[in-house]
């Protein structure tokens, strides 16, 4: 068995979920599955053992002192450039990735494109499946991920007994996914599970049921990658996470959070003064929230508005969303929320969308929130990368840290349809086709993009097997 990257978090056995139903009883002792993205871990285990071999890089400093220095390097890009200087430094950065990622760092000021690994999607009643993106760095680092057939499913990570037909992902960011384990659409008992597929972390949260039950909610998850230089108490472990959730209770919007360090839910607290109605709440479900300012602000896209919550004060406001198309209407189905490299809130929408054969125009616009309001960005044309027989496009996911937008395309004629998925990198504006299905219909349901956490990324900088002796 391979070493997990982050220490496998103890399932919440110290505070077992209330065991009032049989399904809850099954969850009382959740069995973590295996991490299914294990190629990377094999490489790492090997390097850890080999670290003792002295590499003379000409620096007199011991590993211990060098690590102190590397831990304090201001940005992730600086740390990556350090790893690029010589074999010893690269080995240190990858082998000690967990502790190096705990230091709060300044915002990167740029997109970190290699963090985007792939996406999860639902088909029918099967558990979410993962599709690896064949983008350059991911395929080099994780060849195993691309070759797997059938593609890895969430059921190999989370115990099958926990996953029901209605289980679905409700948030995905910083290497973590949040899965709603409830079995039926009207099950008010809230059963959430936080996983990191790369490390094999599976953490089932204590269930909220009975009077505490919740039907509609908006949530997101934060971890060490969110801390910045203003963070008061940085997390002590790289497997730390904090899940935050808002829902309606007695006509108010209330807030609760769960921290892996405390292992318990906070009490309900009232959010002031903007509120989020049940209908709007249901619209946010599945998108997760965008986290800004080192975890101090969370943004959720609700129907035609952005709901902004300060996690420090629990003050909330709503911000209007720019109209898409030619300024005529809201197209919430094709509106994604994200952050610019400068950490400004931004909205991704279609600028032009015309699929008339012979005169197709498809462009994507990133509108950025400034102090003056929404600032229209320039249009990024993508029709040149699409098939000539494109019949429909839909925006699917914005990868918060890597600046990648994925969108699905229906192509072909009425007799033979294809469903394809494309990725647009906002920094280089390169469009890549990711995958194609010879099927029509909602092949790409409930899509959630997956980005690695920084600790996993740094660990992945290890020299791949077979290259060491070159």
């Amino acid at each position, binding site marked *: 068995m391979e070493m997990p990257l982050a220490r496998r978090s103890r399932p919440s056995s110290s505070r077992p979920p209330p065991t009032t139903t049989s399904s809850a009883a099954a969850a009382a002792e959740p069995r973590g599955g295996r991490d299914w993205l294990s190629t990377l871990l094999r490489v790492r285990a090997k390097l850890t053992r080999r670290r003792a071999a002295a590499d003379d*890089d000409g620096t007199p*400093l011991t590993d211990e*002192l060098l690590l102190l220095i590397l831990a304090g390097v201001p940005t992730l*890009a600086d740390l990556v*450039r*350090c790893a690029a200087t*010589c074999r010893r430094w690269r080995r240190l950065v990858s082998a000690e990735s967990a502790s190096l990622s705990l230091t709060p760092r300044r915002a990167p000021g740029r997109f970190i494109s290699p963090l985007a690994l792939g996406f999860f999607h639902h088909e029918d009643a099967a558990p979410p499946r993962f599709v690896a993106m064949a983008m350059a760095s991911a395929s080099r680092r994780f060849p195993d991920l691309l070759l797997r057939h059938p593609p890895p499913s969430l059921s190999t990570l989370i115990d099958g007994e926990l996953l029901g037909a209605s289980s679905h992902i409700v948030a995905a960011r910083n290497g973590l996914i949040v899965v709603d384990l409830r079995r039926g659409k009207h099950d008010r008992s809230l059963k959430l599970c936080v996983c990191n597929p790369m490390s094999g972390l599976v953490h089932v949260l204590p269930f909220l049921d009975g009077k505490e039950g919740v039907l509609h909610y908006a949530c997101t998850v934060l971890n060490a990658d969110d801390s910045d230089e203003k963070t008061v108490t940085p997390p002590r472990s790289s497997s730390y996470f904090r899940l935050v959730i808002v829902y309606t209770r007695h006509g108010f919007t209330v807030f609760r959070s769960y921290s892996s360090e405390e292992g318990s839910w906070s009490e309900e607290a009232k959010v002031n003064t903007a509120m989020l109605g049940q209908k709007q709440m249901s619209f946010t479900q599945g998108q997760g929230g965008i986290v800004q300012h080192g975890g101090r602000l969370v943004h959720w896209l609700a129907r035609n508005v952005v709901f902004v919550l300060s996690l420090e004060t629990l003050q909330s406001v709503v911000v209007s969303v720019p109209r898409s198309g030619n300024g005529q209407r809201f197209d919430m189905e094709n509106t994604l929320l994200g952050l610019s490299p400068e950490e400004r809130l931004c909205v991704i929408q279609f600028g032009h969308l015309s699929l008339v054969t012979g005169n197709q125009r498809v462009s994507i616009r990133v509108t950025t929130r400034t102090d003056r309001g929404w600032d229209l960005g320039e249009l990024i044309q993508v029709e040149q990368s699409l098939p000539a027989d494109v019949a429909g496009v839909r925006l699917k996911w914005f990868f918060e840290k890597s600046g990648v937008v994925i969108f699905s395309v229906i192509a072909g004629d009425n007799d033979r349809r294809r469903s394809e998925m494309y990725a647009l990198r906002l920094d280089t504006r390169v469009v890549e086709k990711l995958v194609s299905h010879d099927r029509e219909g909602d092949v790409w349901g409930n899509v959630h993009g997956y980005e690695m956490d920084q600790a996993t990324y740094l660990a992945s900088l290890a020299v791949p097997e077979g290259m060491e002796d*070159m």
Partner: protein
Amino acid sequence: MEVDKGKGEAEETRKVAEADRDTVTLKSSDGKLFEVSKEAAARLSTVLAGMIAGGSIDDNGTDLKQIGSEALENVVDYCNKHANSIPSAALISSSISFNTAPFKEPEEWERKFVDRLSHDALFDLVEAANFLGMERLLDVTCHKISEMMKGKSPDQIREVFNIKNDYTKEELEEIRQELAWAFYDD
């Protein structure tokens, strides 16, 4: 008898005198002697504090064979400056305010103190601070070096640290491609 008694008394006197002295003498690897405030040494260095408490301080100069005279001079200089400095208002207020950073930013005089050092002197001081268990000095010197990395290319970092580039041409090309996102200027 008389002589022996006299010698014993002298020893006693010397010990008392040493206990009363408010400085300790440290000896570098190359034999140079430095005086440092006993109070500051005990407060800033866990190793010196242990030696003072354990009575293993030598009046003729406590041997610190691992530390060269230039680094030891900087250590002593830091201790003396620290003893004289009054914590700035900013540091006091930040230590009680809600927004305390995990690592307390260097004070102005600490910043100046490390800024004037050459790279080699800085690295020697990191090792000396580590050897003597001087947590704050280690933090301040490491912080300075960490900050020096900001925006530097791998070539520039190699130069600062005198690192031998042990990558092959092919590997360097691969690194440039794979880590491209981190390579363009800030």
